[in-house]
Every structure is written in structure tokens, then in C-alpha cells.
């Protein structure tokens, strides 16, 4: 993708996730410091920025501060809003604007939404799952809250590299038969710790369930498709995005092994994951 040619703002940071660099500009030094701290390990070079957002630290005029996220496309511009932020983004100009309260969760949500929109066009997705690299191959561990994403992350042996305990970043490597790649993300769950900013070819997706024994079972294709769709993050429900995400999920289960991993919450489970 082409790079931005505009001058770097006085206070700005480039946050690069999945190799996609987003520059965030703010006039607030303290907020900038928070961004550097929160996205440490994912701070990129300014010359690599592909997209740019200006942040206006004012509470958005929202009728409902607790309102859930909504994402709509109006004449090619994406409008993203929640009780604590309102953002607009024009993918053509590669620029956007965020009005938000000075909390880290709003910018985090906007980044997640932007990446889901970008990934939807690149045969990729963000998934509610932990992920880790072992022996040069990446593994995803998906499940609802309480299924064990953070537990299995905590139990990871020292030779495993944790990519995230909460939100995994997956993109097709090229042609479908070339498989998929998992990237580290700064999107942390209960572990409250960013993943490593690295990548590896994806070997398998495990659907987590805690149980009385460690067991791996194959999952039928249709069940795998349903589970993948249930765990993919997507906020925009326009026709094109829905169709794209659906086809990506189906392609994914066609090319990546999906297993159900029932596990006792102790380190022995990692003996099965190699």
C-alpha cells in the first residue's frame, strides 16, 4: 500500500498491528504517553504509516453513554460510534477522525474495528481467541469468556511465544492453499499483557472446553464453520462485509484443521500442542 506523505504531527504515534501501520495524532501529551505505554512493542516507524487518525479528546455528544458499538458505511466513509467515541474514516483518503473521551478503551475499539474492516477485504479476521507460536507454528485457542483462553495462555511453556490471550489476528498468507498466518496483537484479556509482535504460519484452531481429561477431537466442517463465525469479530453488517467474512470463514475451515480441545487446567495440556 502507498505511504502517507503528510508531515508528522507534533504528538503522534504509529501503531503497527499485523504489519498495518496506523498513525494516531493527538494534541495531548499525557494521552500520547498512554498510547506509547499501551501499545509498547507495536510502535512502528512513522515512514511506514498507511492510515492516519486525528484524535479529538472531547466526550462525543451521545444520547446514551453506554450505547453499544455501531459501524455503518455512508458514501464510502465508515462511521463508528459507541457511547464513549465517534469516529469517521475514509479508506480512500486513508484518514480518519476520532472524537473520544480520554480513555484507552475507545482508541482500542476503533483500532479493532478498523482492522476488522481491512481484514475483511484481505481474507482475514480478528478472532476471539488466544494464540501462541510453538516450534515455528501458530495455534489459535478460541472460546467464549470463561472457556480457558487466558488459562491456556498462562499455562504456556517457556518455549511458546504468546501472540495474545484475547484477540487473534489472522490473515491469508497468499493463495488459499498457502494457508494462513497469525500475528501478535496488543489486544489483551485478563492476562493484561500484550502479545509478542511477531508472526507464524497457522497450524490449527482449537475450540476450548475445560474438562476432566486432556483430549483432542476433530470437528466436522459445518460445526467448525459455525464456531469460527461465532468467534470472528465483525461490527459492520453491510452486505459486502458480511458476505466477505462468511466466505473467509468457510475458506478458513477448509484449509486449517479445527479441533475441539478439552483440557484439565494444568500445564500438561501443552504436551498435546506441538
Amino acid at each position, binding site marked *: 500500500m502507498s505511504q502517507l506523505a503528510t508531515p508528522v504531527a507534533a504528538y503522534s504515534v504509529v501503531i503497527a498491528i499485523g504489519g498495518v501501520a496506523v498513525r494516531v495524532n493527538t494534541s495531548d501529551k499525557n494521552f500520547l504517553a498512554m498510547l506509547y505505554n499501551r501499545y509498547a512493542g507495536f510502535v512502528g516507524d512513522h515512514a511506514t504509516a498507511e492510515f492516519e487518525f486525528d484524535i479529538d479528546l472531547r466526550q462525543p455528544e451521545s444520547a446514551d453513554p453506554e450505547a453499544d458499538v455501531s459501524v455503518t458505511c455512508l458514501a464510502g466513509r465508515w462511521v463508528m460510534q459507541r457511547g464513549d467515541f465517534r469516529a469517521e474514516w475514509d479508506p480512500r483518503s486513508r484518514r480518519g477522525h476520532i472524537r473520544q473521551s480520554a480513555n484507552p478503551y475507545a482508541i482500542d475499539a476503533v483500532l479493532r474495528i478498523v482492522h476488522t474492516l481491512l481484514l475483511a477485504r484481505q481474507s482475514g479476521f480478528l478472532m476471539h481467541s488466544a494464540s501462541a507460536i510453538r516450534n515455528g507454528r501458530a495455534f489459535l485457542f478460541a472460546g467464549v469468556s470463561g472457556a480457558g483462553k487466558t488459562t491456556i495462555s498462562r499455562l504456556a511453556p517457556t518455549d511458546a511465544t504468546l501472540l495474545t490471550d484475547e484477540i487473534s489476528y489472522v490473515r491469508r498468507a497468499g493463495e488459499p492453499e498457502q494457508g494462513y498466518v497469525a500475528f501478535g496483537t496488543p489486544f489483551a484479556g485478563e492476562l493484561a499483557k500484550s502479545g509478542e509482535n511477531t508472526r507464524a504460519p497457522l497450524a490449527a484452531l482449537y475450540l476450548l472446553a475445560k474438562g476432566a481429561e486432556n483430549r483432542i477431537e476433530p470437528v*466436522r*466442517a*459445518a460445526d*467448525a*464453520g*459455525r464456531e469460527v*463465525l461465532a468467534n470472528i469479530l*465483525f461490527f459492520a*453488517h*453491510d*452486505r459486502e462485509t*458480511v*458476505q466477505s467474512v*462468511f*466466505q473467509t470463514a*468457510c*475458506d478458513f*475451515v*477448509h484449509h486449517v484443521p479445527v479441533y475441539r480441545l478439552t483440557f484439565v487446567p494444568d500445564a500438561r495440556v501443552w504436551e498435546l500442542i506441538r
Partner: protein
Amino acid sequence: MSRKLYVARSPRIAARKLGEEMLVMSAVDSTLFTLNPTATILWQAADGATPLDEIVEHKICSEFDVNPDEALRDAETLANDLATRGILLISEQPIGAAKPRLQESA
């Protein structure tokens, strides 16, 4: 049965056969459906040009051991149900090309 009914796949959905099951997702509200074998046959044959009674005769009665009149009544009920969910379009006239992307995978 005097009137002809025509059915077509809605363009506002995405569909894919995974294993033996047809998954269909509404592009309107992202609802995910799994079609049973009869619904899958009906959905795959719903080209907007073939009357429902012909689909039943050639695709359903040939596949299942069912009474043709009963099968047609069941198919009309099923088609109406799928139409209510936004998966199929129904008309008493042939329906123009409105086919969603359909792919199959093992």
C-alpha cells in the same frame, strides 16, 4: 394446483456447503442458518425460472420416497418459511437473475 410458484435465491445472503451441510448467512442481520437436506435441494434448485412443482418433481421426489402432492405442499410451506427469513424470493412470475455467490467445499 393451478398457479405456478417460482423461487429464487436471495441476493442478500451468503451461502456455502461445508461437508454435508449448507450454511446460509443473512447479509441483512448476519443471522446464520443451517439448511436441512430438503431445504438444501430446494435452495440449490431455486433459479427463479424453474417452477416449484417441477423442482419438487425432479429434485425432491426423485431423492425421497414421498407422495408428490404432499411433497409440493411441504415444499410450499418450506419455501414460504425460507422467504420469511430472507433466504428465498417467491413469486408467481419467473424471477430475474438474483443469485448470491455459491461455492462448495468438502
